[in-house]
């Protein structure tokens, strides 16, 4: 399938937001938008679903808390319950205040790091990854919207030009 994509470039985020609303109103699918910085409200205008990364972070935190409790219960209480400075190593609960700093830190550690790794994996980011930006200007001062076409190129181009794009290009989608 050698469908084409229309790439419209904008130089202002307000113009971009209006363009997104107009393209959505005309029932065209927006493939992707490239921005040099986060544009507030763009995800809502595009109708993207909310992220679930906070939920994953909560679950990772629970894992971290469990790891801390199981680890210290095994080491300090079950494996070798020594008397260290008179601290009560008879049961986990009796010595718990001393473990809380570690429980807290491991919860934060797991929640933060595993969430970041989840983010990298879901966004397909890693070192030596080939950059995907279709136009180098999108990292500096231009915004780029990609709309796929299905034999209706002229119509899409006209629509995008009417939204205030500074440049509209047609490229092969399998570039």
């Amino acid at each position, binding site marked *: 399938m050698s469908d084409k994509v229309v790439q419209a470039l904008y130089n202002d985020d307000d113009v971009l937001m209006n363009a997104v609303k107009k393209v959505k109103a005309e029932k065209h699918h927006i493939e992707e938008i490239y921005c040099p910085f986060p544009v507030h409200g763009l995800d809502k205008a595009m109708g993207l679903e909310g992220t679930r990364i*906070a939920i994953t972070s*909560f679950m990772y935190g629970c894992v971290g808390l469990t790891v801390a409790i199981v680890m210290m219960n095994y080491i300090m209480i079950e494996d070798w319950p020594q008397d260290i400075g*008179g601290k009560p190593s008879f049961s986990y609960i009796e010595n718990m*205040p*001393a473990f*809380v700093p570690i429980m807290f830190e491991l919860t934060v550690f797991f929640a933060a790091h595993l969430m970041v790794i989840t983010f990298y994996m879901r966004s397909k980011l890693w070192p030596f990854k080939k950059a995907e930006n279709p136009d180098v200007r999108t990292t500096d001062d231009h915004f780029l919207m990609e709309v796929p076409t299905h034999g209706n190129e002229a119509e899409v181009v006209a629509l995008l030009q009417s939204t205030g794009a500074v440049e509209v290009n047609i490229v092969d989608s399998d570039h």
Partner: protein
Amino acid sequence: MYTFSNRLKMFAIITSVIGALLWGWGFASAPSDVDEVKTMLAEEASHHGGGHGEDANHGEGGGSYDMTQEHGETAGHGEEAGHGDPDEHAEHVFSQLSNKPWSALYVAAFFFMMIALGTLAFYAIQRAAQAGWSPLLFRVMEGITGYLLPGTLIMLVLLLLSVFHVNGIFHWMHDGLTDPASDNYDKLIAGKSGFLNSTGFIIRAVVFIAAWNIFRYFMRKFSLAQDTAEDNRYFKKNFRISAGFLVVFIYTESMMSWDWIMSFDPHWFSTLFGWYVFASMFVSAITVIALVTIYLKSKGLLQEVNDSHIHDLAKFMFGISIFWTYLWFSQFMLIWYSNIPEEVTYFITRIEDYKLPFFGMLAMNFIFPLLILMNSDYKRMNWFVIMAGVVILAGHYIDIFNMVMPATVGDRWFIGAAEIGAVLLFLGIFILVVFSSIAKHPLIAKRNPLIEESRHFHY
């Protein structure tokens, strides 16, 4: 403009009257002399098979450490900690039981006073930080601080009653403690008498109360003057005195917590106590702001207040609840870990005699808000915020209860008629004062330079 509905007014008055009656009943049913206590103890002993002597020793500071025996009165229960002598024991129990209704009154009075004071601090922070989201809520906050004057004056009256020996809840005020010739001589308290003396205590209280109320008066005055002003002069003035108030507040609040709370345990000291009391005060205040805002919004007033404002308040409730826990744990863990006898008695009495309130408040003040208010959708739902708020307020009442009661009534504590009555009494007064203060002026400040931003606040 809000009008104080007659139904709410009646509700507040009835709450107050029922509260006063309950408290009065609790007061009247306290034993009137030592003989009554002796009969009561004899009855108890027959029920418990004579095992009460041991219980009593627990009440005097936990028997597991030698030093705590030496510091028998560390928890400040009363005059002489009786080591087995039944007469002294009866006198000790008598002082605890006669302290009980007074302590209940004191805890409730302090709890509602600290809500007004915490709200004033929150308000001053919003002013000094020039927050863009909160100006729509300024009149609500100003209304809640309306309770500051009556609340602090009630506190002053209670402090004066203690100073003039109407009640004995402050152990260090008892006679003879600083006199080496007296049987009651207490070297530790005598050493602290440079700070802990009735004259200085009352002078400090008057200074704190005057300072807070003067700042509150001018903040409210400038806020109202800005409504009709031609320029932003009063807004700037309010910015300056709010910043000034915050400096004064953190000093006076810290010293107030030593005087009004920590001195119940005059043998004990803790450096982060002022912050700990502040955290309790701050989270209760923010919760009350959220609850009053939601109430007014449900009445169709404050329509410009949207979900995002409630969301922000709920975030503060969540964050400051965790801050409170951080301070609670920091204080507890440092003392538990090092286990120095003169410090650790504070927690030993609480864990032995107050296990349920002491650890129960952790569930109410930390675990419950942590789980309920973590989700960002829940923070935008009014009934979730109300539910979390009610639990947080009850939890912080128990927090103050735990700070005061072990030193005044020891193991004789009970949340009964006197305690519930005192809370209802001050709750009624609080509602009366706060809502009539809110009803005095329009609910939206007119010429605040940030009010437009607040109207369109969206998170």
